[in-house]
């Protein structure tokens, strides 16, 4: 499958934080085409293994979380409207007039209502609507709604994947299915290269609510090297230039205190040698990604963080470039395969 179609397929899967059980089989099916074995753990982390072909293979973990932000039903009112709160970082002002799927007893189409401008008093017209004042309308009255929907059911956003010019794709859940696409593209690349090490390609859960899957994965696999793939902010008007990266200009390689200096330097060197487009992402804190967990898990796992620039993060119109996904995949695969052959001259052992 071409990367474009793979990404579309991945974005069509629903895995709202904590309910990855609904999606684990689909993710497992996609990974299994390129792995020697795939298993799903008790928390629905999907763990693919591509065995190494060399002597004394080490274990490399490459992870991309597959959970997505969404909403959760907190109540059903007397008219059948659903109250909700956020699952993960949702900006309330992006929700009005959104189409949603309520994952109740069966999947139900719904909309988040928004009061027409005609009915809003002028003094309130500039005021943002609060999350607790919004409601989902599924078209049913209270009795039918209560039969089909329960407090605690999750809600996903409905938005088609848009193919834009310049290899750009937009839609919901590009955070982080674009990284899952990179994970799969990396496995494809590894089919064409001989590699010594075992590669654990893991689609992890509940990243958006506390990096949960990374805690389990690092403990259970005890890898020698961890590579986290996630999205970073794409460059957009008014975005701070040191925290956002232009789309189509390559994978962002993170540099910072929690990341392995040795591996990061070698990785940058490889990108230069292989002419893989890259950008440098300076992360002075813990990165807020799974890399934060890996770097301090067990005895400490040397960790790399590769990011795909995504504009409009945590909205239904997140935008990425297929070129950056390809660059991330190529760099991860080639680093895993060729890291021992890189000229380490002048590098310290840290």
């Amino acid at each position: 499958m071409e990367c474009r179609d793979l990404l579309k397929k991945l974005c069509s899967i629903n895995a709202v934080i904590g309910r990855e059980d609904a999606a684990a089989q689909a993710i497992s099916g996609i990974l299994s085409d390129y792995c020697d074995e795939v298993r799903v753990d008790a928390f629905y982390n999907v763990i693919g293994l591509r065995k190494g072909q060399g002597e004394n293979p080490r274990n490399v973990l490459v992870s991309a979380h597959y959970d997505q932000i969404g909403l959760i039903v907190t109540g059903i009112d007397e008219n059948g409207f659903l109250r909700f709160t956020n699952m993960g970082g949702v900006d309330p002002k992006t929700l009005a007039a959104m189409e949603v799927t309520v994952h109740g007893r069966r999947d139900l189409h719904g909309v988040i209502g928004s009061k027409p401008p005609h009915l809003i008093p002028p003094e309130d017209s500039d005021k943002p609507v609060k999350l607790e004042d919004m409601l989902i309308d599924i078209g049913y009255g209270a009795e039918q709604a209560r039969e089909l929907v329960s407090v605690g059911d999750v809600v996903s956003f409905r938005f088609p994947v848009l193919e834009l010019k310049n290899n750009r794709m937009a839609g919901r859940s590009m955070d982080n299915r674009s990284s899952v696409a990179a994970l799969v593209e990396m496995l494809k690349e590894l089919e064409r290269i001989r590699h010594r090490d075992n590669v654990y390609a893991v689609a992890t859960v509940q990243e958006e609510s506390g990096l949960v899957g990374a805690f389990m994965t690092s403990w259970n696999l005890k890898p020698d090297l961890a590579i986290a793939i996630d999205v970073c902010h794409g460059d957009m008007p008014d975005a701070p230039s040191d925290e956002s990266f232009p789309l189509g200009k390559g994978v962002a390689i993170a540099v910072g205190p929690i990341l392995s200096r040795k591996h990061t330097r070698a990785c940058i060197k490889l990108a230069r040698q292989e002419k893989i487009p890259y950008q440098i992402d300076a992360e002075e804190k813990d990165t807020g990604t799974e890399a934060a967990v890996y770097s301090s898990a067990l005895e400490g796992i040397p960790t790399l963080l590769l990011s795909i620039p995504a504009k409009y993060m945590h909205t239904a119109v997140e935008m990425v470039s297929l070129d950056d996904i390809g660059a991330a995949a190529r760099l991860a695969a080639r680093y895993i395969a060729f890291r021992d052959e890189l000229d380490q001259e002048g590098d310290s052992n840290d």
Partner: protein
Amino acid sequence: MFDTISMLVNAFGPSGRENRVAEVVTQMIKDKVDEISSDAMGNLIAVKKGSGKKIMLAAHMDEIGLIITTIDDKGFLRFGTVGGVLPLISLGQRVVFENGLTGVVWYEESIESMKDAKIDKMYIDIGAKTREQARELVEIGDMAVFEGRPVEQNGLIISKALDDRVGCAILAELARRCPATDNEIYYVFTTQEEVGLRGARTAAYAIRPDLAIAIDVTRTGDTPKSKPGAVSLGEGPAIKVKDNSVIAHPRIRERLVDCARENGIPFQFEVVDKGGTDAGSIHITAGGIPSGGVSIPTRFIHSASEIVDIKDVENAARLLEAFIKF
């Protein structure tokens, strides 16, 4: 149940100083379990042996409190907080130290608005006239807890520290009933929940259970102009869907629902944005421990007058008894 709860809430036990609560629990259950021991964090772990699944039930022993930071030359005590203490509801409260000394929390009357009544504008008066006199009774680092003796009224219990001695009481009751099951049950009375779910983390690491349930309190939405959507007092224990520290494992949540339905036990769902429970640290320990929660709807959490409905407490015990037998 009220007597059990009374004995537990009356024990002094802010975070890090839970030993008196542990002593009360030990006396209640030691004859009914196969092993009982404390670990380095002060967690009390009681085991009923079995050959089936290892199930960890966790309730925290610690309560919120105040900690003395400085003593001024007139004998007034300045303090910091241990856990989530709200400044405004601390005002005018009586507090009690471990040695039985009583103090009163008041504020600097020069402040212009009660909104400015932050903790650093407040003090504890123990009636001492000088720093020296005060230091004969207390020392910097000593902790105090709210006074608020337990009362039973209209089927409700009003008391301080129901968060989470009510959970401890449910576990103690359950241990005393000795439910017939092949599963190995770990009754774990944890420490330092209020300051970061700390005790449960080491206890779960040591036990490595197959699954875990945290028993704690959850806020209600049934008081005047409270937020809609939350649970109500007296309508059954709440089965946790999510809080700010954990999303309940879907299979555990479903099993709890099945147990409630099969036994005709009323229940509600807990979906909250704020607050955490021991399940938050347990579920990410040692490669992942599927975890859930059973919560007691509670009004006025973290005040000296928390309120629970005794029916909810009893139904929570029934629900857990059914759950651990599967």
